[in-house]
């Protein structure tokens, strides 16, 4: 990245329509496929790279390897039957799908959610954010050959999965946030065990900071590399840590407050340099912010009161015609659900707006040009993309 050959004569010329004039038969260029089976790829996607020497001159994102037609399937299911589907749209952080879908259904159906459920939902979303960031940190280090970091963060994530299992009965897909509230309250002694997990997590993050963020190799390969120009944020729909690392404090939790975030004390974590290192550091500090938010939630949430509103018979549930959009701030940026109902017992249309949709296609294809082949994986991981939310 950034190591451009001064002589550009050997690189492809631009056609009148803006595309590159790449003649593969000339022998100057080579097509490389990075993924879908490749250690330097995130999830089930692939990059079609055209390289000249070791420099990428064109890159195209290919998705669809995990397409299951979720949005279409939901049009043939009752509103409650959609729940086992929505969480599968994002494996590492499934709870945002449950929350956004539930909140959209509640809004169109006119359901008031009890206060305690708002607190538990916020708790779950922050726990999911921690899990997602831990997975990211391991992937970002692994993309540069630092494999041990992933083992530490996987251990820490496993501790948080224990808390998820204790709270929801499941480790990965929780199916805990339903329309009307949540399925249960906190189990006895949960706050104490969570406090212990958070202390362990902070110890792991201190180790990660010393071993990864102070590592000369990591700095050499990430500082000043993969810069997102702040001018690209709006044209390319950049949100979340990718935007905050560019110095723009863009956070749905603060900009469009939802759940109990207005009652919590926090400020969006930002950076300035907008490179791979800064994005990783923003996510590390955002992870520590989530630790702090969980402590605030557990200290202030009501211990009594209902956690589920009364619902109609969900097997015969018809929702009046309408449409809405509900968003939240997931670990990768703005996550949202656009729901259209027509008065029947099924959603007319559900559209999932995942941050990877813009980050992994239009933005990545722009950023990858002039990147060195060896840096492609680090660049892609630094955008923190999950392909299933692109292809739904």
């Amino acid at each position, binding site marked *: 990245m950034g190591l451009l050959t001064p002589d550009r004569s050997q690189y492809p010329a631009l056609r009148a329509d803006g595309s590159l004039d790449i003649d593969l038969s000339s022998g100057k260029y080579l097509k490389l496929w990075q993924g879908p089976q490749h250690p330097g790829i995130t999830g089930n996607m692939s990059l079609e790279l055209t390289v000249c020497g070791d420099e990428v001159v064109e890159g195209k994102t290919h998705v*669809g390897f995990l397409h299951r037609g979720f949005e279409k399937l939901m049009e043939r299911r*009752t509103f409650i039957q959609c729940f086992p589907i929505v969480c599968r749209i994002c494996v590492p952080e499934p709870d945002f799908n449950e929350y956004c879908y539930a909140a959209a259904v509640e809004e169109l159906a006119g359901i008031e959610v009890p206060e305690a459920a708002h607190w538990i939902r916020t708790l779950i979303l922050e726990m999911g954010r921690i899990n997602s960031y831990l997975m990211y940190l391991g992937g970002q280090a692994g993309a540069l050959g630092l494999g041990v970091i992933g083992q530490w963060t996987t251990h820490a994530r496993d501790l948080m999965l224990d808390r998820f299992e204790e709270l929801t009965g499941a480790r990965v897909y929780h199916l805990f946030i339903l329309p009307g509230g949540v399925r249960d309250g906190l189990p006895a002694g949960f706050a104490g065990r969570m406090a212990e997990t958070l202390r362990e997590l902070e110890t792991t993050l201190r180790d990660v900071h010393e071993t990864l963020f102070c590592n000369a190799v990591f700095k050499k390969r990430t500082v000043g590399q993969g810069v997102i120009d702040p001018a690209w944020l709006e044209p390319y729909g950049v949100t979340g840590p990718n935007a905050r690392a560019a110095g723009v404090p863009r956070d749905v939790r603060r900009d469009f407050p939802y759940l109990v975030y207005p009652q919590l004390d926090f400020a969006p974590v930002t950076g300035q340099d907008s490179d791979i290192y800064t994005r990783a550091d923003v996510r590390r500090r955002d992870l520590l912010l989530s630790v702090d938010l969980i402590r605030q939630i557990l200290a202030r949430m009501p211990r009594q009161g209902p956690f589920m509103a009364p619902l109609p018979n969900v097997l015969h549930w018809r929702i009046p015609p*309408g449409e809405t*959009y509900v968003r939240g701030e997931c670990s990768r940026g*703005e996550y949202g659900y656009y729901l259209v109902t027509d008065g029947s017992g099924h959603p007319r*249309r559900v559209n999932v707006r995942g941050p990877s949709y*813009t980050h992994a*296609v*239009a933005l990545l294809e722009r950023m990858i040009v002039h990147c060195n082949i060896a840096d492609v994986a680090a660049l892609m991981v630094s955008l923190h993309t999950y392909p299933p939310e692109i292809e739904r």
Partner: protein
Amino acid sequence: MPSNADPMSLAGVHARLQALFPLGDLAPRRAGLAFVDLPATCAPPALSHLRDREGFGHLVLLTAVDWLEEELFQLTYLVCNREARLDLGLRVRIPREPARMESIHDIWPTAATYQRELREMFGIDFPGSPRLDEAFILEDWRDIPPYRRDFDTLRFARENFAERPGRETWDPASHMRQRLYPEANPGMDPSVPGDRS
């Protein structure tokens, strides 16, 4: 006629936009979110105006709703003004055949991705949009676009995939009726999966 609406509200934005384009009535959903109908030819200039003059710089999503019974597609352009905390959904209705809409990739480059998906999944054409004919999610698709309402997923699955033997599909309503009121169907044991006797 001058509007009395708060200039920073959706009503104010709607009033200013209505002076330029033949908009429908504002349909508020909640504070900070509303939808409005407008003709297809007005959508790109209205979106440009919203982005450049009203601060709606963020294209949240572009998607389609298939109103098969009305022979129409609804395209929803949801745009956001973060500073004012406003979301406005522009609804454009176009005929299903031929389904065609002007591209907005020159306003938001990322719209090209949405338009590729809409072309593939709904068969809506956006002439001039980059790489529109390249496969986005599907490969070698030969049926009607799969997200259209008249695409039958069950028929497609039966024609293309082998049935797994021994699988039972339970209708949730009748299953729960049987579990809750077993006396109504005494011959069926709800504790035995697949017992339809």
